[in-house]
């Protein structure tokens, strides 16, 4: 029998997604450890989530510097000794300040956890912010800032967030030279006391490990003296300044473009459906933006639309670096696509493809311990139920072209859009 290659082999649609079970251990009153075991490699990721994100800072750069200075020395170990003691076991210690929180992460092999854990916790609980190390970090981040400010995409992103959330909103708190200069040991220590030592939100342990490790971690954190945050969240005001903004960079061969508007967060009933609509519009390689502006017209190497939900404000935007000569054509095409998805129902086959692709991508993101831990974090932060991801199956099955068109008209309205272009005139 000859093989007919024109016929698609039969395939199955995904009918079920599952989120694995995990353990919740109460370390102290109201302070939880979430332990999620998955995978085949005996590796561990331990995340401590602190209330030390951009939203907590009263001075720009405070959150970033405090987080990056945690590895620069403790009461008993200087920066080099601290680095050496973890490096020796092949472990990594990373701290990052995000918009809504800060995360300190230890990566190590399961067999080294007992040796690495005390060092990791020492860095977090006995940090001393030495002047000399701070001075070096200030100089080096200034140097990095200068490089960033040469990048169109950086300038574009910065301007976009300032216009969409307002200059004083923490999500728009991009560091300037002056901000770096104003950072000192004192400002960091104050922030550290309040948002790290007394700002622990929860702990996540993920990877493949023996269950006795759960107790080991729980006890160690209990004894570390880290306190749960008791802060009540503050109300943040968003002051959007819609409009078109142009930043001239005369020497560039491409223009960075970002346009978007305020949108809804994960707890909104429309959110998951809107995420799906965004996927169709510009969220994957088969999306409308990619097909039209890259695959049909070749105007860019990449173009995406992103629905970015934060705890204190969300936005939906389109982001690309585009050929300067055809910039106006490209931008016009983006607006055309927005109008089209509002005016015409999405054809059934396009809907089916996107649905199958989306469910497939969930299957992938619910595979592997660290990817699962990332999903779990979203569930915890937004107080969602464990069925949040599995429910996508029924949500997508219920979604019709008509309901997506309604959503497009509700959320992709071009009034109040912020459009930023950085490039040659």
């Amino acid at each position, binding site marked *: 029998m000859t093989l007919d290659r024109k016929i*698609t082999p039969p395939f199955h649609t995904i009918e079920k997604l599952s989120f694995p079970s995990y353990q919740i251990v109460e370390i102290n009153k109201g302070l939880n450890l979430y332990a999620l075991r998955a995978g*085949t490699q005996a590796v561990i990721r331990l995340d401590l989530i602190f209330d030390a994100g951009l939203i907590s800072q009263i001075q720009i750069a405070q959150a970033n510097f405090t987080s990056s200075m945690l590895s620069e020395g403790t009461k008993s170990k200087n920066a080099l000794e601290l680095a050496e003691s973890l490096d020796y076991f092949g472990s990594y210690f990373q701290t990052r300040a995000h918009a809504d929180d800060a995360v300190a992460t230890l990566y190590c092999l399961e067999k080294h956890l007992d040796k690495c854990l005390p060092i990791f916790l020492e860095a977090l609980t006995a940090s001393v912010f030495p002047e000399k190390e701070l001075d070096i970090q200030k100089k080096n981040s200034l140097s*990095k800032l200068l490089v960033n400010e040469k990048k169109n995409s950086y300038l574009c992103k910065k301007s976009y967030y300032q216009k969409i959330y307002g200059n004083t909103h923490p999500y728009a708190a991009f560091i300037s030279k002056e901000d770096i200069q104003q950072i000192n040991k004192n400002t960091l220590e104050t922030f550290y006391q309040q948002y790290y030592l007394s700002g622990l939100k929860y702990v996540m342990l993920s990877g493949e490990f023996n269950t006795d490790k759960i107790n080991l971690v729980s006890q160690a954190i209990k004894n570390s003296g880290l306190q749960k945050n008791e802060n009540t969240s503050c109300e943040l005001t968003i002051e959007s300044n819609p409009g078109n903004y142009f930043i001239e960079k005369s020497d560039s061969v491409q223009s960075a473009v970002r346009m978007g508007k305020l949108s809804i967060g994960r707890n909104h009933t429309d959110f998951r459906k809107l995420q799906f609509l965004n996927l169709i519009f510009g969220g994957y390689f088969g999306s409308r933006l990619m097909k039209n502006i890259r695959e049909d017209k070749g105007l860019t*190497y990449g173009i995406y639309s992103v629905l970015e939900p934060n705890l204190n404000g969300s936005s939906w935007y389109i982001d690309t670096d585009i050929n300067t000569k055809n910039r106006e054509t490209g931008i016009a095409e983006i607006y055309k696509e927005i109008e089209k998805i509002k005016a015409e129902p999405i054809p059934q086959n396009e809907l089916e493809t996107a649905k199958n692709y989306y469910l497939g991508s969930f299957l992938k993101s619910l595979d*592997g311990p660290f990817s699962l831990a990332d999903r779990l974090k979203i569930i915890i932060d937004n107080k969602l139920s464990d069925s949040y991801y599995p429910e996508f199956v029924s949500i997508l099955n219920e979604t019709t072209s008509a309901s997506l068109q309604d959503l497009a008209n509700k959320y992709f309205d071009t009034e109040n859009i912020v459009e930023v272009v950085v490039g040659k005139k």
Partner: protein
Amino acid sequence: MIQYNTFQLNNGLNVIHHHDNSTQLCALNILYKVGSRNEDPTKTGFAHLFEHLMFGGSENIPEFDLALQTAGGESNAFTSNDITNYYVTLPANNIETGFWLESDRMLSLDFSEKSLSVQRNVVIEEFKERYLNQPYGDVWLRILPLAYKEHPYNWATIGKEISHIEHADLDQVKSFFFNFYAPNNAILVVAGNISLDETKRLCEKWFEPIPRRNTLIKPYPQEPKQTEARKEHVYSDVPVNMIVKAYHMGGRLDPDYYASDLLSDILGGGKSAAFYHKLVKEKRLFSELDTYISGDADPGLFLIEGKLSKGISFEVAESAILEELEAFKNQLVSEKVLTKVINKTETNIQFGDISLLNRAMKLAFAAFLGDINLANTEIDHYLAVKPETLQMIAKNMLVEENCSTLYYHAK
């Protein structure tokens, strides 16, 4: 330990099967033994441009991505100096779609003029976005021709210049395809929740009918030993000065490869490494200073790359690097430091192996190098490195006669 089985189809396609029943996914990874080193020096960037065309429709399937996405799959690819690698992941029960798609584009592309013209533009935009419109983006485009005078590593995978991409035509596309994209010039890895029997059945069904082709891999010149220091100065609108030093090192199968890799980690990997600790922190000559290796199959490069602190001259910065290198040559590395970098390597390997796709790629690349077992024995090679070996390599390799230095001046 990555378990695997291997077999070969009648048309010469080598297949590696890796079973993992802990996942609901399946991956197909196809490595074609062609990279930018196989390009004509006057038509560079072609292997990479060709990679883009592989998504532009094949003989029986007009839209590769559409067909894949409909079955819940994702795909991507990359081109290096040595290989072009394609991968697809799907829900395990839909893996036949992957076989259908990958075998059809191995059988024949539809060679469309439109796809070529669009992808030429996309790649030109990629060239601009990644290499021209970024501060220091062209460092790689400049260091390679300085370090390589004969070997085709002389140019970057993206190509020497945009005009080479602009001039690519459909005849070139066809002859490239029928020469290099042959079953007998590829390695297929099937990994995930799929049995060996099912793998064989699907391989025989979809790949075996593709005829073997006459693949001609033209010999290309090898790089003669460098005998004197090379230096180049560049002036550009960047905020701070940067120095790049590139030393020739052994290829992927060279017995000293692993030691050179560890050496780069000892000198510049992380906050406890000598470079960071002494030159960034103690002497404050650099704001960043890293070391890395290019990792090519043929003899590659060992690189030191640093951004200078404000007010520090190239002379001062460079002599400080050389001083550290001398110190290293004159004293055996301690067991403690060696254990540290080996432990780090072990962690990296373990973390890397979490991903099914990584495991599949690792198997494919090891088979490409000619020793599939390398996918599992890498760590033994690292463990076998002795302090004396490191010292000897440093003495032979890290000398100025073997080095190309790029001084990237802030205008």
